[in-house]
Every structure is written in structure tokens, then in C-alpha cells.
């Protein structure tokens, strides 16, 4: 089943500086399957954030169309249902939190949707437990760390019980520890809760555990495949202004030094295992 589908999606805006027409998305065709984890990569200005904002009708297509579970995002009467189905987590956790108490903030979306108080309570408790922030439910958000705040923001989206969550560079402002905790939550959404995950990022390492990687460059999709397929093609990646994951880069340089390693080892564990096996054979 298709969760999100874009059909020849086009978007452009008029620059305020030189009043020139800037094209951001040049006729994008993309289908995201339900229950999958898709990473969208691209350097600044590749159009990846603009694409994400089309998924829950924050931006509307200027050409072509976007469908969420078959619903056209241009239909204004469907807007609440579309936003309930596709939750969005942004870069800066501070600018997503509305309330002065964690649980009040998580309750914000179900309150907007008009659920009865007992149902809101149940959703809030469940969402907070899913991101591991239940013990902090009565805390003030501004006293939490960046990673904790971002987890509260994720809980705020999960309280809508969405089918899909779009993450727009959720770790860009976090320290390594906070980043790790967010990546863990993202994996849990996909593996345990069956939520479709779209992760917009420029951290290659976060894309490694995705089911599918889509690479964007100047408003077009230039690569689309499994992480293995995409990261093995170093030349195209570099041309798009992207780096390869640290593990792949390590394997590349070890191969240049004559070590026999498979290019397919992507995660840190796989990479360590491959090096271990190769060294054992060498000795």
C-alpha cells in the first residue's frame, strides 16, 4: 500500500533579493510504501525540506499533486485528516513546544482534534512512554536537554497516532548523545509501532539503517535504492555534494591499502565484523 505519493510535483518561489524565479522542485515522482523507513538525503538547497513540507499540506503543490493514503493534499476539507495522518518533527525542538509542562504539550495535538479528556490522557501517557519521557511528564520543557526536548516533540506528534512521521533534520541541533537517542526512537517507530518514517537528513550515518535511500540534488531525485546500492556509488554521491558514511569511507581506504573487504558492510557492527574476518584470514 502506498502511504505518500507525489505526482510530477513542482514548486518554485520568487526570490526577495533579485526577484528571480527560483525552481525548488522540478516535477518529482515519488512513492513511499506504508511501513517503510525512507531516508531523503541532499545538501542544503536540494529541495528536501520543501518536499517534506508538501507531505502534510504545509505547502501546496504549484504543479502536479501529492496524495496521502489516496487523499489529495490540495483539498482543503481534508487538511486536518491529512495532518493527523502525517506528523512532522522539525529541526529546532524549542520552536515546536507550545506548553510550559511536558504532558500539556504532548496533549496539544489531541486537544486540537477534539478528543474527550480520557482519550487524550491515554494517548499522552502512551506517547510519552514510547519515547521514554514518561517520568518527565510534569517537568518544564525549557529545563530539559536538547535530545529530551526533541523526544517530547516526537511524543507530541505520536499523540495524534499518525500513520507516518516525517522528520526534517531532527538531529541537526543536538549533541552526539541526543542524536543517538533520537535515532533509537526513529528505529522503534518503524520496527515496533509500524509507523512509516521519512527522515530528511544530511547525516549519512543516520540513513544507513533505512529501508530505502532517496538522494536529491537541485530539485530532482538523482539516486533511489537500498542504502547498500546508494552508498557504493561514491562518485555520484560526491557529485551531489554529499559524503559517504564513515564506515564506507573506512572500507574504501582499507581496500586501497590492499585489504580484502566487502563494500556492502554499512553499519558499525557489520564494518567491525568484516574487518575482523579479513584480519583473521590475513593472519
Amino acid at each position: 500500500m502506498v502511504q505518500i505519493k507525489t505526482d510530477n510535483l513542482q514548486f518554485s518561489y520568487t526570490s526577495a533579493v533579485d526577484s528571480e524565479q527560483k525552481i525548488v522542485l522540478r516535477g518529482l515522482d515519488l512513492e513511499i510504501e506504508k511501513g517503510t523507513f525512507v531516508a531523503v538525503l541532499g545538501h542544503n538547497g536540494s529541495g528536501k525540506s520543501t518536499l517534506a513540507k508538501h507531505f502534510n499540506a504545509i505547502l501546496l503543490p504549484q504543479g502536479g499533486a501529492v496524495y496521502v493514503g489516496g487523499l489529495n493534499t490540495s483539498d482543503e476539507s481534508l487538511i486536518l485528516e491529512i495532518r493527523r495522518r502525517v506528523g512532522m518533527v522539525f529541526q529546532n525542538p524549542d520552536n515546536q513546544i507550545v506548553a510550559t509542562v511536558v504532558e500539556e504539550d504532548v496533549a496539544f495535538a489531541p486537544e486540537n482534534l477534539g478528543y474527550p479528556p480520557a482519550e487524550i490522557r491515554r494517548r499522552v501517557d502512551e506517547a510519552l512512554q514510547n519515547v521514554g519521557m514518561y517520568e518527565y511528564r510534569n517537568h518544564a520543557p525549557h529545563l530539559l536537554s536538547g535530545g529530551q526536548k526533541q523526544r517530547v516533540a516526537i511524543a507530541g506528534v505520536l499523540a495524534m497516532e499518525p500513520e507516518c512521521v516525517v522528520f526534517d533534520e531532527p538531529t541537526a541541533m543536538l549533541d552526539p548523545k541526543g542524536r543517538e537517542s533520537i535515532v533509537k526512537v526513529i528505529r522503534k517507530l518503524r520496527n515496533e509501532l509500524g509507523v512509516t518514517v521519512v527522515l530528511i537528513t544530511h547525516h549519512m550515518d543516520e540513513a544507513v539503517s533505512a529501508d530505502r535511500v532517496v538522494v536529491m540534488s537541485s530539485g530532482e531525485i538523482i539516486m533511489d535504492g537500498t542504502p547498500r546500492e546508494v552508498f557504493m556509488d561514491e562518485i555520484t554521491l560526491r557529485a551531489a555534494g554529499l559524503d559517504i558514511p564513515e564506515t564506507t569511507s573506512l572500507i574504501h581506504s582499507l581496500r586501497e591499502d590492499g585489504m580484502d573487504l566487502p563494500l556492502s558492510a554499512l553499519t558499525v557492527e557489520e564494518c567491525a565484523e568484516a574487518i575482523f574476518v579479513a584480519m583473521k584470514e590475513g593472519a
Partner: protein
Amino acid sequence: MLKDITLGQFFPGNTIVHRLDPRVKLLLTLVYITALFIAQGLLGYILMLAVLLTCLSLSKIGPKTVLRGLRPVIIIILLTVILNVFFIRGETVLFEWRFIVITREGLVTAGFMASRLIMLIIGTFLLTYTTSPIALTDGLEQMLNPLKKIKLPIHELAMMMSIALRFIPTLIEETDKIMSAQKARGIDFETGGLISRARAVVPLIIPLFISAFRRADELATAMESRCYHGGEGRTRMKTLKAAWQDYTALLLGAGIIAAVIILRNVSFGIL
């Protein structure tokens, strides 16, 4: 440094005063202020003082905190006392020197005015000491709800208030950061005359405004993403429910007003 500012001066606790419905507390504060202005004569004042002291001891707010709340208004109180002492001309003159005349009536009125002011301030502070800003906003929103009928944007006002409360610590933190950044670039915020200090604030205010607008824009997008569409059809997780304590408190409030009115007619000579 700026982080130490306590907002709304709320002291968390779990006393009966803390647990009262915020709507009831707001109403009772209005009742208390009205009673203070009706009160006349020694007995009326003694009754109000007793009411205040009972509330204070029930809320377990220490005398130090109470006195600290009075500090900013000391000048106003002193001014009231001085004006009353020197300008009220009564019959019993206690002291006379050239144009300065102090009468017994002047002293008495000054005393009453000062204690009325002090009790007024402490009483209203008690509300903010024992009610969290969110509870106050919630209470205000629900109390003013009927005004929606005459098209007053009550939900929007309450939403703005709670977002402002939410962002004050964030913006204070940001101010701190910008100040450090500008100090590192050689801006002196602490010394110099009034004009040069005012000028030093400009490179602080401008980045702060730009960032506040950017934040507002991002917050609006995030709120829309979470299905915010105004107050229509919105429910609340925690609804305010008045319990028996709240009704008892309201009855007591009505009793105090009645008592104060009765006591107006009882007097002991000049007091």
C-alpha cells in the same frame, strides 16, 4: 545571570490554597479586594487582617517571602503615609510648627491607608504565589468564556498568554547568549553614560527580534502540523472542576463581605 528571574513568582506546593480551583481563587481575590475597600473602622480591619493571616498560614508561604513582595512598593506606601499625615486637617492638633500641622485624624487615616495598601498587595501576591501561570491562564480563559458570545477572542488571548509564558525563559537564555557574543566583540554594556549604554543595547535588541520572528514562524508551522485550527472544536485534557472546598471557600468569601458591611456601623470613638 538573567536566568535567576522567577516568573509570576509561583511557589509550588500542595496546600489547600494551592489546590483550590484557579477560577475560585481569582474570584476570591476580587472579593478580598472589594472587602478591603468596604472595610471601615478598627474591627473591620482586624477582621481583614485575620482573614489574610489565616490564608497565609494555610498556604505555608514564609513571612520573608511576603515581606520581599512588599519591597518594590515601599515608596508608594511611604508617600501615602506622608501625604495623609500632613494634609489631613482634623480637630485634635498634636503638633504645629509654621505650616506643618499634624492632627490625630491625619495619623489615624494614614495608618488605615497604609495597612489597607499593604494588605491589598500581600493578598494579590498570594494569588500568584500559590497559582501556576498556566493554571491562572486556564482559569481566566474558562471564566471569560461567556464573553465569546460578544465576539471577544478569549481563546486567542489565552493562547497568546500561555505561549508568551512558554517563551520567556527561552528568550532570556537567548539574550544571555547574544550578550556574551557581543561582549566578545567588544561591546560594553555596563559602563558609560545613559546614551552610550542605550546605544549598546541596539546590537542586542536587533538580533533578538530577528530570532524571535524566526521562532514565531517556525512555531506557527509546528502548531499547524499538529492540527491547530483555532479554539473551535478544541477539547482539554485537564478540565477544571470545582470541588466542595471551592464552594466552601466561595461561601466564606460571601460571609466576609457581609461581616465587613455590618462592621462598618460599629465604631469605637474615632477609630
